[in-house]
């Protein structure tokens, strides 16, 4: 049984996904009406599908030379930050309040990725100070200088 490396499997999945998107774009472009509105999408989706299928076939044959994929180590470190960022953006910013959610997300990310020892009070004081500075700068810049009205909801 031949061994298929992780990057190769990832390349196949990624290029397969892009090929599927390309085919969906082409299908919509060629089937939706009015046809005049889809003239340009038809043109680009044709090239899109050709290139995407070419990339997919290359990935299946193992001819892909560019791109290293995502290593397990990278993914393990990336995941917590990505989850915090996505919760912040897609839920908390609107539900909790823009500044409150932003400050909590900032503090969590800073604390998680900071290499300083978690057991020392000095480390936590530094993190809280940096977070407070971030909140002050963001509030000053966007609320006071640019007068941007942000979703307030539960807090602000």
């Amino acid at each position: 049984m031949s061994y298929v490396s992780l990057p190769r499997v990832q390349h196949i999945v990624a290029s397969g996904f892009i090929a599927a998107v390309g085919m969906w774009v082409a299908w919509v472009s060629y089937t939706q009406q009015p046809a005049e509105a889809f003239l340009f999408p038809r043109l680009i989706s044709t090239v899109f599908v050709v290139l995407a299928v070419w990339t997919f076939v290359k990935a299946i044959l193992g001819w892909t030379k560019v791109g290293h994929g995502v290593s397990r180590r990278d993914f393990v470190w990336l995941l917590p930050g990505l989850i915090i960022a996505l919760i912040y953006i897609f839920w908390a910013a609107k539900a909790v309040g823009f500044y409150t959610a932003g400050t909590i997300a900032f503090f969590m990310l800073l604390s998680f990725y900071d290499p300083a020892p978690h057991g020392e009070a000095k480390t936590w004081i530094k993190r809280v100070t940096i977070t407070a500075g971030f909140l002050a700068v963001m509030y000053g810049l966007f609320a006071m200088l640019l007068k941007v009205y942000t979703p307030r909801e539960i807090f602000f």
Partner: protein
Amino acid sequence: MEFLYYFGDVFTPISFGLLLLGTIGGLILGATPGLSPTMAVALLIPFTFHLAPVQGLILLGAAYTSTVAGGAVSAILLKIPGAPANIATTLDGHTMAKQGKGAQALQLSFLASAVGGVIGVLLLIFLTPVLAQWALAFGPSHLFWLAILGVTVIGSLDSASVVKGLLSGCIGLWLATIGFDDIMGAQRFIFHPALGGGINIIAALIGLFAIPQVLTMFAKGRNAANAEVIDVEKHSIMDAVRELLRRPKALSIGTITGSVIGLIPGVGGQIAGLVAYDQTKKFSSEREKFGKGHSEGVIAAESANNAMVGPSLVPLLTLSIPGSPTAAVLLGGLLIHGIFPGTDLFDNHPDVAWTFINSMLIGQVLMCLFGLYVAGLAARVAQVPQSVMAAVVLGLAVFGSYSVQSSMGDVYVMATLGVMMYFLERFGFSAAPLVLGLILGPIAEANFIQGSMIAGATDGMASYFLTGALNIVLIAIVIASIAYSVWMELRSRRYTSKEEIMA
């Protein structure tokens, strides 16, 4: 000499203040590894939205120029190029710093950057109006091919894989069609309510350039290994000037190489610096000293990467084809203010065009003056932990994309495109052609539709789009750029890779 008429406009308090802010801020941001010039300019765009067009462009132009020069600080003192354009600077710059000549290397880099930058901007001043007038002869079919040329040139030359670069461009062109069609009012690819108004360019730019950097920093984990900053000792500025004047060959090769490469869309500062370094080494009588802390290496690399900045804006301001990814972001900055490059810019907004270009000229001098003073500070800022940097950039990306239209939909688009781009980059795709597709997509489509209407009433599509001298020349350039890139890819890498240099 029309530009002289608008020179005074740069010195109004707000414009000059923004120029100073952009220059000093850009020097510091440029020195920070992980914050590329393109990302810095993309993050600044939401702020320019609240300014007058000319003021916004002055800020963006100053940031563009000085982030490229600022990248030399971390390249010399930390051996970490602040931007890809500074890779060649590490070769001799860091070695000079280790030999106790860090101050001299920094002074030479800023002086050479200023000389290269001024000549590059002069080229911009004198070439742009000529090409803009020439662009008047362009009809819809030519403008369609020009937009396609912009996407294919960056897609093929800026990417490690030609097919993936072109595919990125196609994805960008498709993303540009999302929303309501301008002519028929039909809905196209609106699979989420946030996409009803199409994809906001600023949100997309921030997402595509900032979020992948943030996620890359996350993926590095708890990185405690900060590079050691080499202390800078005092060195006479006049000695640096004399040293620069003693090396005219390196300065002229760097400046000429950078200027020529800047004019070619898609090639960028990284190639300019490396080619200039390589050519200077070939023509030098002291070639054995290169790589061992030779001043000519720093002079050639830095004069080239800043000489590239001005000319990279020539195809942008005349034909809407950005010469580099950062120029593509600048194009987005122009379009959000309702300003279209080409003759419209110089005929209807000469105050904006010339004040912006003049500010870049003055910005080169300011960058040189301040660069020498803020280098030490910039090197310390470059040591800010990645955990702080990632959280700050994420916060700026969210607040910045929201502030443009006070829309959460833009924040969702920014985040979705950003996460998508991170994974695409892992598989060899590049953000620059995707952005070009997104920006040039509406221009290509509008001219394609207009051209098809004309073709329908005349000789037919094939005849209208594929014949005529200018059409044939443009199509030939599209094919040639793809063919050249495929040839280069097959021949493997011609230039020194970043990994080889950093090893």
